């Protein structure tokens, strides 16, 4: 069994970090994982995307054309990748920045106003954590407490911002549970 998740958005939205935290939690849970960034000649403000592959056996090809799920943090990402997602997958749409929808009937849309919710808990910078926890709560790919511990550990060197990110994490879970 293998699951692939594509995280996509603007450079600076914390896409690579969200993906890394998910990969880290999955590794802690005993899965095989690979975190594969796009590293083309990107510019600040351009699109950034990254794929996490989680499996119960050693991962063969880490290059994934059709991921199981998509976390789209901005409109160009949704437009570019929505059609690649396998039927039955989850597409998280950051509705704070994306006024449109995927246009697909065979996937599950998870609408998360990640930026607005992040501002409400204290800082727009936590939007990626809200999206991550909402996605994880919806798909149950990894244990939520374990993922939360990984978020905490990631910010260990910046203890000041841990409470903000913990609040953001809980808010993301709430949004997913209510959807």
């Amino acid at each position: 069994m293998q699951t692939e998740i594509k995280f996509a958005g603007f450079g600076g939205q914390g896409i690579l970090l969200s993906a890394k935290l998910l990969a880290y939690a999955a590794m802690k849970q005993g899965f095989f994982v690979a975190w594969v960034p796009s590293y083309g000649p990107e510019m600040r403000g351009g699109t950034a995307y990254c794929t996490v592959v989680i499996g119960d056996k050693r991962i063969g090809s880490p290059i994934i054309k059709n991921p199981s799920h998509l976390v789209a943090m901005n409109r160009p990402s949704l437009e570019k990748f929505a059609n690649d997602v396998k039927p039955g997958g989850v597409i998280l749409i950051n509705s704070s920045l994306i006024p449109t929808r995927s246009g697909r009937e065979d996937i599950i849309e998870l609408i998360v106003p990640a930026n607005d919710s992040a501002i409400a808990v204290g800082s727009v910078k936590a939007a990626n954590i809200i999206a991550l926890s909402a996605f994880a709560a919806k798909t149950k790919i990894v244990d939520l407490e374990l993922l939360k511990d990984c978020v905490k550990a990631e910010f260990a060197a910046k203890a000041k911002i841990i409470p903000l990110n913990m609040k953001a994490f809980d808010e993301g879970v709430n949004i997913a549970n209510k959807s």
Partner: protein
Amino acid sequence: MAKVLMKGNEAIGEAAIRAGCKNYFAYPITPQSEVAEYLAKRLPEVGGVFLQGESEVAVGYMIFGAAGAGERVMTTSSSPGISLMSEAISYIAGAQVPAVFVNIMRGGPGLGGILPSQGDYFQATKGGGHGDYHLLVLAPDGVQEAVEMTMNAFTLAEKYRGPVMIMGDGLIGQMMEPVEFPDTLKTEPSNKDDWATSGMDHRKSDKRNLVKSLFLDPTELNNNNLALKAKYDQMKREEVLYEGYNTDTDYTVLIVSYGTMSRVCKTAIDMMKEQGIEVGLLRPKTLFPFPEKPVFDAATKESCKHVISIEMSMGQMVEDVERSVKGRREVDFYGECGGDIPTPEKIIQVIKALL
């Protein structure tokens, strides 16, 4: 030690530290710059030296100098940078000093691109620099193997007193995977008193060492080349590494593929198995010495009708595969080298066209 999640480039840097490498000189180039970034921070913590050279040409000779002084030394670069170092690599081979080179390959020729490639196979295995020399070339297929091979590379470089190369590609450098670091290696090259210009103060004998690659006397030069040849023959006997995948079945097609490309082939093989098509894979882990006999044996298995070399190049390793198969099977080739790694679906299409 518990598993950690690391980028290939950073893991290679940490592996070098754990192998006792205290000297790392480099010049930044995508997609391997994170090795330099990582070691610039880590080496001072363990009393080592990181130095950014003014160019890869300079870095090559810094490596030569440190290696000649008996220090454990490494550099990392990507394709165009390795071309610039190739002169020094030839001198290092000629002077018989141990050094570790890492090539995180990108597309070429020229500046090419920055995406993954396997276009430097010829350069690594057939020369690159001038003269009769070989690098011992190790090709990892992921972050864990990159760590193990980097650590072993120092042992091998010292065993053979010559340059060893790790051949990764942009994907292995940039990707994060869980890694576990093996125990640390011993930190002193065991035989360095015999050859290194490490300073008379530290040495037991009074013998004065000279590190050089210039031998104007024809007999002396011939002897130096015979000594190198003896090492390469020994490598062929003792250091060949490879992996077989699905080779215990009655496969009709044998794929030969290495590094990142071999992982895509494994996925394709699993998918074809579900469709009732058996395909075997032989993955060279050493590119020089090339696993000639294992390739021959796998290719000439009775059930095997086709052999194909699949590479992220326009056909380089295929020549070694043909050489190994000795005409007993026809050898086909498939490759792409723009930076987009062929998908498992594409590999399946290529294999089915053979059947």
